[in-house]
């Protein structure tokens, strides 16, 4: 049995991240992959899929529920928590940083599982990066919106041209060592209070 025959269960409440992992596993040639987004009814899923490897988000408090489940069901025989190789502190660090935890059926050779966990770590990280970029893009958009509004207020109240209003805010931001979006926000807030 090659490591592609391993049954893998991914439990992740974040559907997007779960899809990213599932893609990665399938691209790597794994065909027995099951993905669930909730731990409700997880006992039945485990019973039906008999996973060799379970990957679960480390921030999921339901890990404690899984521990209890392993006591109750015999379908996962003595799952080992988290990491294949306890001596490899770099990979442990990487997995925790990424937020991956895993259970592996006792007796599985570590060479067979390591690529799966490494892949999960890479994909978890890729997802975090994606999320960060999305948030940055979102906040850049918000910044632009508030700067536009502040510019409009300054133009109206102080009779400035668009360029002058922009230059005034930029100069103020530099003088006060603040971000231009913060200055713009103060203008909008103050205008809301005063008008």
């Amino acid at each position: 049995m090659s490591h592609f025959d391993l049954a893998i269960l991914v439990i992740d409440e974040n559907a997007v991240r779960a899809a990213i992992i599932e893609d990665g596993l399938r691209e790597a040639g794994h065909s027995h992959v099951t993905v669930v987004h909730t731990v409700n009814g997880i006992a039945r899923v485990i019973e039906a899929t008999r996973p060799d490897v379970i990957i679960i988000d480390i921030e999921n408090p339901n890990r404690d529920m899984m521990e209890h489940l392993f006591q109750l069901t015999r379908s996962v025989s003595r799952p080992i928590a988290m990491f294949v190789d306890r001596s490899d502190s770099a990979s442990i660090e990487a997995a925790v940083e990424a937020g991956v935890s895993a259970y592996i059926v006792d007796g599985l050779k570590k060479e067979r599982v390591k690529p799966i966990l490494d892949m999960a770590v890479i994909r978890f990280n890729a997802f975090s990066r994606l999320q960060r970029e999305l948030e940055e893009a979102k906040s850049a958009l918000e910044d632009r919106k508030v700067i536009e509004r502040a510019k409009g207020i300054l133009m109206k109240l102080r009779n400035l041209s668009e360029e002058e209003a922009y230059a005034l805010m930029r100069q103020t931001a530099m003088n006060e060592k603040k971000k231009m979006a913060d200055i713009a926000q103060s203008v909008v807030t103050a205008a809301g209070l005063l008008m």
Partner: protein
Amino acid sequence: MTTIDHPDIAAPAVTSGPEQTHLRAGFIPLVDASVLIAAAELGFAAREGLTLDLVRDVSWANIRDRLAFRQFDLAHMLSPMPIAAMLELGSNPSPTIAPFVLGRGGNAITLSVRLFEAMQAMTGLADDASALDCAKALATVIAGRKQSGMPPLTLGMTYPYSSHNYELRYWLAAGGVDPDRDVRLRVVPPPMTSDALAAGAIDGFCVGAPWNMVASEKGVGRIVATKQDIWASSPEKVIGLRPDWAERNRDSVSRLIVALNASARWCDDPANHEALADLLAQEANLGAPVEIIRHVLAGQFALDAKGNRRVVPNYFVFHGAEANCPSSTQALWVYSQMVRWGQVAYSPEAAATAASAFRADLYASALGLRESPCEEAVADPFIDGRSFDPAELEAYVRSFGSPNQGATA
């Protein structure tokens, strides 16, 4: 400074370097992490030359694994966790010792208001009924449900190796309910208990503070028993360490115990409860409403949302009555419950292993005590009138009968 007398002799491969004084401590946001949080944030650790970095976590499984994998140097743990670890139970057992108990108390059992009303209707249970009477009334309701073919009730607890699991089971059994056959037990993360109860996903639960109070003040739950009602001497959370780390950092372990001891004394003083409540309420610590934490620290219970109240003296004991000393009696009692419910088999060797998790010797030597002060202080009565004598461990374990076939929760 070291001098090399024999430069031709190679230095040993492993030298005992300076001890670690900057420690990473994992904790779960619960009131019983008070002593650890106050030690880190109010200067008790700094006074002993230690820096404690607190890292908040979301599950006991994470706490266990991150301690085992050296991401934490010490951790806030459920008292049965080091014992389970020494007995190699669970999915990642790694040797763990407890040289300090963070206190007693804090747990309670809450049932849904609907279930409590059914108990009152069937048995005439009074509003101020005792914990034992509540358990018996629950047994009556369960028997009634069974006769009319209704599905078993589901009760939540926190972790298979938790005081909550054993206390809930002890209380149920004291009332005549078989926790493996008459009800379904499942793990529910504490912050989710009150919502799970409101949604009808569970019919009751046993967790630590402040979650019982949260459910009762919301009007979804009725508190029916506290840890004190079941066995007041029972340890709650402990500080867990890796024994090899403790061996290499003996001095730091001593300082840690001294710092925790001073912090525990401070936390125990009601005059400091206002400041402690403010500290705990902070987002980075518990992030729970300060009024509820104040009530919890004072042991003032809103039993339900109808105004039934109860004051539990010593609901939290952070320091008094030798609450910080890890007693082998406590460890052996936890072991007896593990045997009782089929998590582990009884043997004198396993009992010795279980007892070795609680290190009263480290506690006593750090505080300059010649003898361990623990054993005298754990003689509180049990809810069912039994008593526990560690010298009669085997007879005690046998007195519960053999564990249910196949029941391992």
